[in-house]
């Protein structure tokens, strides 16, 4: 199969992939859209940080504080380069992608004109968003009186942009959408949406949680105003997310959380705020986790995001083909590997996904079942839930074969 990475070598970096479950079954980890596993290099960076450099960052004059600060800010440099940000000061560390998205929604709710979202204005999302890119906007709409609108889906799991001019209008202040869907796998047509948003002067926020781990990212090429993603899905630790935002916006927009680190000067009567990114990083940041994310980025770069993309494309192509051989299996989302990421949702006849997942698990195969935090997609396609297999740089064709065999077993079991 052309395009595949040397997974034998790569898998050696991931201690957990050697694990056996259920009395000696080899672990087949196909739940990468939920979270990725971590290479030894990232775990070593975490341990080294705590064993040698740990201190609170910023403003310390002792060695550990200087070193910890350099490591933390060095991680910011790595992220900035990874996403081709024009400036490192545009990279805000959060706790996860959900916080990043809530941060944008809250900034806009408290902003002055021209950014302010209020009862006269509209917010646009899509029906294939993760709950983390739905609920913050529902809350913002409730709190401000703004109207929430969304793009629907076509039967084959793509955005229905046929009415784009009615959805995105002069009233639209913000359009927030997912680059790669975590449930359907769809890769969305960024350019079309951004062009229309720019026409009407709306800001654009892109949820890149399922993109940043899997493909080269270039925030300048995306032409978005904000891009959010999360560390744990890209070989990094839990507890760290990123929000990239355009510098002028970060300067103009109000802070969200208040506290240490985000201030310039405080008196009991009033406070002024530090310039971005610190303005948006209240309290002791996830220092070790940023360092770990930096190590994850080094790791991904050492393999090459282009090559990771090619590998996953090959694996996805193979998976789509093999899954088509399973009787009664129906893919929910694009049925080819074109413009799709490495997460494949499906139903298997009448067998409930919980049963599919459980019987696969008994064979050591870890998939996710449920609505994948994207319940509107399930509603749209009239299904209670799906089974989702999702791949990453260490996934192999043999694991796809194991999945297909496992599904045969599921069918016999409940047949």
């Amino acid at each position, binding site marked *: 199969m052309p395009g595949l990475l040397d997974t034998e070598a790569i898998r050696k970096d991931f201690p957990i992939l050697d694990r056996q479950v259920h009395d000696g079954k080899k672990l087949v980890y196909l739940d990468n859209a939920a979270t990725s596993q971590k290479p030894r290099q990232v775990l070593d960076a975490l341990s080294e940080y705590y064993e040698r450099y740990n201190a609170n960052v910023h403003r310390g004059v002792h060695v550990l504080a200087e070193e910890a600060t350099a490591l933390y800010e060095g991680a910011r440099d790595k992220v900035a380069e990874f996403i081709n940000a024009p400036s490192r000061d545009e990279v805000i560390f959060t706790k996860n992608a959900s916080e990043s998205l809530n941060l944008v929604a809250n900034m806009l709710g408290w902003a002055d004109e021209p950014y302010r979202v209020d009862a006269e204005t509209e917010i646009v999302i899509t029906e294939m968003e993760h709950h983390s890119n739905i609920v913050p906007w529902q809350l913002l709409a409730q709190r401000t009186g703004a109207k929430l609108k969304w793009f629907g889906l076509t039967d084959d799991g793509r955005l229905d942009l046929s009415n784009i001019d009615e959805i995105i209008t002069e009233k639209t202040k913000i359009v927030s959408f997912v680059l790669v869907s975590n449930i359907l796998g769809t890769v969305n047509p960024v350019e079309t949406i951004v062009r229309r948003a720019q026409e009407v002067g709306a800001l654009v926020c892109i949820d890149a949680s399922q993109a940043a781990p899997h493909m080269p990212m270039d925030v300048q090429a995306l032409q978005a105003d904000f891009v959010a993603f999360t560390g744990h899905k890209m070989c990094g630790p839990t507890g760290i997310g990123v929000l990239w935002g355009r510098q002028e916006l970060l300067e103009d927009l109000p802070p969200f959380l208040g506290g240490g680190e985000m201030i310039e000067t405080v008196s009991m009567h009033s406070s002024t705020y530090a310039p971005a990114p610190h303005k948006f990083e209240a309290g002791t940041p996830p220092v070790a986790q940023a360092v770990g994310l930096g190590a994850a980025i080094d790791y991904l770069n050492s393999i090459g995001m282009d090559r990771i993309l090619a590998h996953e494309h090959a694996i996805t192509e193979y998976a789509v083909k093999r899954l088509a051989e399973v009787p009664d299996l129906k893919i929910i989302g694009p049925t080819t590997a074109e413009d799709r990421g490495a997460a494949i949702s499906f139903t298997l006849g009448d067998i409930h996904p*919980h049963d599919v997942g459980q*019987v696969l698990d008994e064979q050591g195969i870890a998939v996710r079942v449920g609505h994948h935090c994207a319940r509107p997609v399930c509603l749209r396609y009239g299904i209670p839930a799906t089974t989702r297999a999702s791949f990453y740089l260490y996934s192999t064709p043999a694991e796809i074969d194991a999945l297909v065999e496992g599904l045969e077993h599921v069918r016999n079991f409940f047949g």
Partner: protein
Amino acid sequence: MYQEVILDHYKNPHGRGLRDGDAEVHHVNPTCGDEITLRVKYDGTTIRDVSYEGQGCSISQASASVLNDLLVGKELADARQIQETFLELMQSKGKIEPDDAMEEILEDAVAFAGVSKYPARVKCALLSWMAWKDATAQALGGADAERKTA
């Protein structure tokens, strides 16, 4: 966890379908989309019928079938004891090994003991039982029935 008994009830559910009743409830498990519509029919304090319709995983479907088997024809007090015993078993995190006394009460339902080890599935097994409790409270007068159960 998929005992033969569970699979049998899943493939051939007992008493499935909606029939006449004194009260009807609709319960949903939002995390997995399991749904049940359930009706109870009482004759004084005797359970005349528990009829249901639903969709969901084998555990939730089989559990409804077992419930129908166990409860129809019983006196309310006995049914309550069965329900509570089943609840206790399901909340045991795999730590209760059903003994003869429990088997006497729960019959086929002891097959669900293994499910209690899987927190994500316990709710599925309990869905119909919670629906029954709720429907019973409605049929026999809410607050009063509730108080006795608590």
